[in-house]
């Protein structure tokens, strides 16, 4: 069993219009020191998954089922108080927009000190020293002075660094980063990713990066999970997913990724259509209305939900097409266009 082991996780929200199946039967695992990238469009259920692991899914309305094992401990069904004690200490989270995610009325230092003192019975002075130390470690210059600054006095990149310092202040073994670079300038994104990689090595924590940006996961991940409509459609090592992707949706994601090694005159190949509604998920394969190869499997695409099957060691794909069909499509039609070596 992995350090974090999620089995058949379902997070459903009953609403007046029907049940929103944000996450519908998701399984994955992450080891200490390893990084899992969860990729998908907006509304594919990736953020809800991370909030579900931390027990932060909205209110009491959500229905959770399945299993979440953290270090041999089952979190679904554990008391809210028990999960609260683990939050921040054993598992921590970095959010997308560091400006709105930090309290505007408290100094950065105060917020880090607070995070530390929830789980450590130490004096304010000790916690403050720790906060300054953490700020220094995430690369904030003059941490002893900046500790008393307010979030609005920081630049976007500095704020995200402070957010990371806050999340790491209790040395969590599981760190979930939800779109950690989306709100940042492109020039700062790479710095933050480098920082996260370095810190992960230093702290040896399990890291989950949630993003819609394949470039980000390519940079950091050991494993990649591609989500679509609340379900996993492809799951494998970064190598598998980048060099031998087998799901048409993953192909679409790769095709819509801007790349510097291509001629600027070439156009991106966006995926047609928009993500499915999570209340009325299309019958059969959820991706079939947007899939250029749906006709190949005939009625099956519209009537039968494809199973997540292993195509090679640990590489899982949810597609009706046969393995050979996918391979030949990738080799002959997709790969030459994407020019992946």
């Amino acid at each position, binding site marked *: 069993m992995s350090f974090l082991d999620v089995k058949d996780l379902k997070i459903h929200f009953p609403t007046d219009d029907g049940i929103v199946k944000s996450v519908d039967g998701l399984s994955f695992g992450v080891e200490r020191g390893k990084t899992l990238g969860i990729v998908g469009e907006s509304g594919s259920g990736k953020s809800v998954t991370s909030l579900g692991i931390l027990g932060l899914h909205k209110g009491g309305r959500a229905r959770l089922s399945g299993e979440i094992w953290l270090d041999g401990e089952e979190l679904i069904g554990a008391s809210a108080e028990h999960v*609260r004690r683990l*939050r921040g200490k054993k598992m921590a989270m970095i959010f997308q927009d560091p400006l709105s*995610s930090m*309290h*505007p*009325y408290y100094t950065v230092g105060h917020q880090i000190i607070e*995070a530390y003192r929830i789980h450590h019975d130490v004096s304010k002075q000790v916690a403050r020293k720790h906060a300054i130390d953490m700020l220094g470690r995430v690369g904030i210059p003059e941490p002893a002075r900046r500790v008393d600054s307010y979030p*609005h006095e920081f630049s976007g990149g500095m704020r995200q660094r402070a957010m990371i310092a806050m999340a790491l202040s209790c040395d969590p073994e599981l760190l979930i980063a939800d779109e950690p670079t989306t709100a940042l300038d492109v020039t700062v994104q790479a710095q933050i990713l480098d920082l996260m990689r370095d810190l992960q090595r230093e702290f040896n924590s399990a890291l989950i990066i949630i993003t819609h940006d394949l470039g980000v996961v390519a940079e950091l991940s050991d494993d990649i999970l591609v989500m679509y409509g609340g379900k996993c459609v492809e799951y494998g090592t970064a190598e598998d997913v980048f060099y031998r992707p087998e799901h048409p949706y993953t192909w679409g994601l790769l095709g819509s990724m801007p790349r510097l090694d291509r001629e600027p005159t070439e156009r991106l190949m966006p995926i047609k259509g928009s993500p499915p509604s999570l209340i009325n998920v299309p019958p059969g394969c959820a991706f079939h209305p947007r899939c250029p190869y749906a006709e190949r499997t005939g009625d099956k695409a519209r009537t039968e939900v494809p199973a997540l099957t292993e195509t090679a060691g640990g590489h899982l794909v949810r597609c009706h097409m046969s393995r050979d069909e996918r391979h030949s499509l990738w080799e002959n039609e997709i790969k030459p266009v994407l020019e992946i070596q």
Partner: protein
Amino acid sequence: MLTYIIRRLIGAFAMLIVISMVTFGIFYVVPQWAGATPEAMASRYVGRAATPETVHLVAERLGFYDPVVVQYGNFVKGIFAGAQYDYGAGVEQCPAPCFGYSFISGQPVWPDLLDRMPVTFSLAIGAAVLWVIAGVTVGVVSALRRGSFFDRLTMGTALAGVSLPIFFTGMISLVVFSYGLGWTPPGGSYTPIDENPALWAYDLLLPWITLAFLFAATYARLTRAGMLETMGEDYIRTARAKGLKERQVVVKHGLRATLTPILTLFGIDFGLLIGGAILTETTYTLPGLGQYAILAIRTQDMPQVMGVVLVAATFVVVASLIVDLLYAVVDPRVRLS
């Protein structure tokens, strides 16, 4: 920070100057436009039996023949430096701040105002403590249990609280609790706090509750709306992700942000109230500034009206100045602007 304070102080002072000009204009200049002669105005000081010569003399001594600017200058000078009134039978000294003499009683206005301030202050402070505690608590609990029976009950009551005027709730409460059950003293009871603190509180209990009910309703609704918004903010999610207890999340992170706009409203409300809680003081016959204002208006006693209006305006301006300064303490983002 210092420039911020200085800028706000200058702004507050300028505001008071403008208010004094407008008030002076309304009570001394507009009547003359409307056809009131200096003699007609002077005759209010001397009574009806006076001869035209006396009236003319008084009008001259009070400066009613002077240009408006000079009159205004003298009025402001009286407030800051005091004034002398020569009625012919001897010179009256009116020490600063001099708001002139009452038409009716012939007494200087300022000591009257001073006498009445403690009553209004007592009423306003006691009620403010009650309504802030009750309103904010109810608002927070309602927001957290949105849609519950408690929420619907309190918000329904709050709607009633906002819509029912003091002269209705006040009268009903007097009829029931004072004259019916005899739990509280009848209207018109007031004991200064330095005489007997217990009796002071006992006498003011019913006015406090009635007045607080009206304001608590507004504050509860406002707190509820603010909390509902704040609790959906990203930083609340962050606070939870840190592992904070829900109570700390609500109070330290949620309420803290919600209270800031409420502070502004409180400053204005409280400032208005210490300038005279007119309806409450009238309903319970409390000898405060509000009652004074009503009496002054009824008897068209211009110096009294001027005095009470200016004092009330000063309270509002000072209260909002204090709120502005507090805002810089409460919301660190204000300091930069």
